[in-house]
């Protein structure tokens, strides 16, 4: 276990933004366009962010009652050994599902744009191996890695945003709220899942165990705000460039948007490479966070700490991510992943918080 001092506010925001931005930035536009069907999809992100913020507050409340405890430590504390064990297993399964989902989508995009003839398991396997190296030494390394790549990631996104500004057709974004406020509001049920990752308040809890609930709340809102801002800018850009009708057809609209950027006379013509690089970073950070959560869960639930066992976890993720036969099937399973996410990040914390209130437990001293 590598040592780690308490996170500062900036580091906290960096870690959580890195965790939250993930496959959503590439996958979200199409289902969102299908759901909302007006150019106001950016508004759905604000709604999604507000709901996510509310859920995050439940978790903050829970964390601040048990400072420094991870989900896997506090669930047996609250519900007793057996029920706690069961909850932990469910949570581990949830992280497994999400990790495998992120991995499969990432590998799909990489295969689609970069390595079309390489076997899928090679792409996935190498990704897992590198991630295993990152997580095997503890939370400190994970956090430092996120810090290192955050500026690079932001730079890529900002550069891409600025470059694509030229192609934006403002008419595609109009009319604003042409069909009222209800359709974009409904879009919140899609955008919500693009913010997955905020629940790691319950996993990285050791790194801010000395913080007050109030500052945690502010930091959490700030992280969600930054994430929402990035998503909003990119949604607005994709709509502005591709148009809502086209958005419904394309599988990876954001990459296509990056592809459409053209600068004559400039040596480098293909900007999707820059975007893909920035995006692989975000996918890697999100995946590593889930992988780390799962490894931590296995560690703390089964009380095993032998490092070689991380490969069993890796093999599980590899197996699950290779299970669907194609990307279409992956998107079908995504619905189930979303249901699992609802249970795991809204249901479990709420249940635990209520039980904790009922049992009047408080470890905040």
């Amino acid at each position: 276990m590598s040592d780690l001092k308490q996170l500062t506010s900036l580091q906290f925001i960096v870690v959580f933004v890195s965790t939250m931005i993930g496959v959503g930035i590439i996958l979200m536009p199409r289902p969102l366009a299908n759901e909302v069907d007006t150019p106001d999809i950016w508004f759905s992100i604000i709604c999604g962010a507000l709901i996510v913020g509310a859920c995050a507050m439940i978790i903050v409340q829970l964390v601040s009652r048990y400072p420094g405890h991870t989900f896997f430590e506090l669930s047996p504390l609250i519900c007793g050994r057996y029920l706690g064990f069961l909850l932990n297993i469910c949570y581990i399964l949830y992280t497994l599902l999400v990790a495998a989902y992120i991995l499969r989508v990432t590998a799909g995009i990489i295969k689609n744009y970069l390595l079309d003839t390489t076997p899928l398991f090679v792409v996935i396997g190498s990704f897992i191996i590198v991630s295993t190296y990152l997580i095997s030494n503890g939370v400190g390394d994970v956090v430092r890695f996120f810090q290192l790549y955050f500026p690079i990631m932001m730079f890529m996104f900002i550069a891409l945003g600025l470059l694509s500004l030229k192609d934006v057709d403002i008419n595609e974004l109009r009319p604003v709220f042409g069909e009222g406020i209800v359709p974009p509001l409904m879009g919140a049920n899609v955008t919500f899942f693009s913010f997955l990752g905020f629940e790691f308040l319950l996993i990285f809890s050791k790194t801010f165990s000395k913080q007050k609930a109030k500052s945690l709340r502010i930091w959490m809102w700030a992280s969600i705000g930054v994430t929402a801002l990035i998503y909003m800018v990119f949604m607005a850009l994709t709509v502005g460039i591709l148009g809502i009708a086209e958005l419904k057809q394309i599988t990876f609209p954001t990459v296509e948007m990056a592809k459409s950027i053209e600068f004559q006379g400039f040596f480098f013509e293909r900007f999707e490479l820059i975007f893909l690089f920035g995006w692989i970073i975000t996918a890697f950070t999100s995946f590593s966070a889930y992988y780390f959560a799962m490894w931590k869960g296995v560690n703390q639930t089964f009380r095993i700490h032998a490092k070689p066992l991380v490969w069993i976890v890796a093999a599980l993720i590899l197996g699950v991510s290779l299970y669907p036969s194609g990307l279409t099937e992956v998107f079908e399973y995504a619905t189930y992943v979303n249901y699992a996410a609802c249970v795991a990040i809204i249901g479990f914390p709420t249940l635990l918080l209520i039980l904790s209130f009922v049992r009047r437990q408080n470890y905040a001293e």
Partner: protein
Amino acid sequence: MKNTNSPIVDDLVRMIEGNDKVTVKTLMVQHSPIYVIYIASICNVNKIQEFIVKPLLDLNLEKSKETPVIQQLPLDHVVKVGQSDQMMRNILNGFTLLIENGNFYVVNTTKFSIRQVQEPVTEVTLRGARDGFIESMEQNISMLRMHLRTNDLTFQEFTIGQKAFTNVSVAYLKNEANPELVQEVIKRVENIQSDYISDGGVVEQLIENNPHSLFPEVHETERPTKVSNSLVEGRVAIFVDGSPSVIIAPATLNALFHSTDDYNFKWIPASMIRILRYFAAFISVILPAVYISLISFHHGLIPTDLAMSISKTREGVPIPSFMEALLMELTIEVLREAGVRLPKPIGPAVSIVGAIVLGEAAVTAGIVSPLMVIVVAFSAICSFTVADYALSLALRTLRFFLLLSAAVLGIYGLILAVFLLSIHLTRFRSFNIPYLEPYAPYYHKRWKDSLIRFKFKKRGGQSE
């Protein structure tokens, strides 16, 4: 050598028997013998004659008998010592051993043959002090003291090595260095169990925690100003007798990229050059790998016109591009090594012949494509901008690793390899200091001397 009638001296003489360069003199002063023992070849014999032997022989007998005769000699520093192994060490360090009534004293009469102070060959700077360390620790410390005049400067001396000993000195500023860091350095130096230490480079490897990592865990320099700057920043320096390179711990990647020139020029150009150096190092590591992955995996990502001309130049090249790159890289490495080993006057000639003639001929013969030569040559030139040689070695090795991963999985493999590398660096610690500090973890206060060196404060402090 004759018997001296003193068991302790006899013991000593036996220890150095067969070593006829050791001089043992017996002087009768006030009817008791005083022995003078030294190795003539490493001592200033004139000093011994002038200030030890002569005064002892003409010593005024009426002088007080309370203070030992030896303490009355006109010498600057006379130290009383105890154990016989210490005596032996002192003699080997060029000290003169004096024995009076079973008491042992040593006097510094060292005179090793040493080289003149010169400008270090490996670390060139445009401005600032030109003196470089030499092989004598005493001289090196005096050079450091010249650049750093403060009574905070503390030295701790050690002797390491079992078969032959080497003097090592740990230097730090009492009020600047973190006591934990000083303790850690001292602990690691004390723990060295080696028969013989030939150079600072050996000490460097023996105090490292990560022998398998490519990256240097400590800084090595021959410039006194670099040591003084580091000490002011709170680092610890290790002087090794007989070695012109001084070890500075801890090292961070950021510090390894700095050059003393950065502080001697105005901050905007100095910062630009520093950014350029980071960029060049990055290019030198990654450019061949990017080229390979674009050529062999992602033709589609190359701009169309360029792709056309590349394919034209690659026409007729019989080997796959990865082998081509490997071949050229190896050639560059061979040239570089040859340039280092060759005598100075013909070194550059070989580099020029190698670089121009070999490259040109290889292209004309159709073995490699001209673009490959450009890529490899440019990345080699970029790697020369890295200030620290140990770091540049690490980067050169890494280039091959990245090349290999790019050859296997294209850009994706390259990205993963870069991730792997950065994970390694985020884990890596030099004397418990994160290697990537101040970038990861963020230390805002130290960003002022990272990618950009901010201007110096006019009133107090280093920079703002």
